């Protein structure tokens, strides 16, 4: 399986073009992230098929950021789905990584995966595995249909379930700050759950402007099943409509909020 990827990685590793290939590996029936450093081990390659295709997704772009920082000057290959590639582009725009040192090896997601992820762009720029599928409308319409008072009430009920595990932040490829506002006593009271409502979740949502690449890893990691995706999708939607800005897609600058311009028309 995945012969095209294996052949390409073997070539890249043998010629020394890359120092390692960051992807996934099957081990004892589980899928885990792994850095392949020699062609001999590439037979264990997995592209993340757990129960359903692609559900063994890990924050590979985040791991790569760490590898690039720890091994200055080296180049790495990385397995990318559409979301991973968007994360790489956004990370480059935020000066976290140098794309010259990254060789993406693409996988295009299946329709099943794209629907499960509510993904608008389920493929990277180029891919060696999979077919391009047309995703269904990925917007969280069920929230839009409700009026503001009802929405407020529902979000409050969702946020109250938060156990403040910080999983949403820890797994997010775009959360790279050295100091996190969500750990600042000025924003979030220490030692209390649920965290301050709705500060905790809205601070994070605002900080994702220009960053969130709509990968859905946060929602998958949330033990309280809070529909975080709907929140960040809404923020992304406002940013796109008002500023014509989408993170991870031809991203040239960090965030539209970093520019001093005329304010957009009232929302």
């Amino acid at each position, binding site marked *: 399986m995945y012969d095209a990827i294996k052949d390409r990685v073997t070539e890249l590793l043998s010629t020394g073009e890359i120092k*390692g290939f960051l992807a996934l590996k099957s081990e004892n029936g589980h899928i885990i992230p792994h850095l392949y450093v020699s062609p001999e081990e590439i037979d264990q390659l997995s592209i993340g098929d757990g129960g359903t295709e692609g559900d063994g997704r890990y924050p590979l772009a985040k791991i790569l950021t760490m590898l690039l920082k720890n091994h200055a000057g080296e180049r790495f290959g990385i397995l990318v789905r559409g979301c991973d590639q968007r994360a790489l582009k956004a990370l480059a725009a935020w000066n976290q990584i140098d794309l010259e040192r990254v060789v993406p090896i693409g996988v295009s997601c299946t329709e099943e995966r794209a629907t499960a992820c509510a993904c608008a762009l389920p493929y990277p720029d180029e891919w060696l595995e999979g077919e391009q599928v047309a995703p269904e409308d990925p917007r969280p319409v069920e929230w839009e249909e409700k009026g503001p008072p009802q929405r407020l009430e529902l979000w409050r009920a969702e946020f109250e379930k938060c156990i403040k595990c910080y*999983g949403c932040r820890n797994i997010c490829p775009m959360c790279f700050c050295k100091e996190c506002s969500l750990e600042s006593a000025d924003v979030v009271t220490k030692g209390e759950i649920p965290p301050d409502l709705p500060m905790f979740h809205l601070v994070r949502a605002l900080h994702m402007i220009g960053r969130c690449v709509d990968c859905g890893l946060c929602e998958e*990691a949330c033990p309280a099943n809070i529909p975080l995706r709907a929140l960040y999708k809404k923020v992304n939607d406002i940013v796109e409509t008002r500023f014509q800005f989408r993170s991870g897609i031809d991203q040239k600058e960090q965030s539209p909020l970093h520019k001093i311009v005329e304010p957009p028309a009232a929302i």
Partner: protein
Amino acid sequence: MDYKTVLTTCAYCGCGCGLCLEVLDGRLIGTLPSKTNPINEGKLCVKGWNIHEFVQHPDRITKPLIRKNGALVEASWDEALDFTVSRLKEIKEDHGSDSIAFLASAKVTNEENYLIMKFARAAVGTNNVDHCARL
């Protein structure tokens, strides 16, 4: 250069969440929830997310300590075990078996918890066995 993740089980409570310990060049640097583990399905609590931190922490106690004249002093395992045995015997003699209690742990295996229960009941003679979470 070496980056790998080691699949293991969280040692903090009895749930048994699966996690991947991230190892970079021989150092433990992070934790990721196992996405394929049927118990936690890619999720962890705040303790699980930070479990890598205690392993190499400089404050971690790696040798037995005995309090002598008010200060904790490093001791050998033999000395520590002899001391524990003699004190347990003394306390049992002076105050009876039920003056002693045993706290088992979610961090160890079922078999080890069985052993501590057996030790409490058969060797010391008390039913005072509880879980560390009720300490």
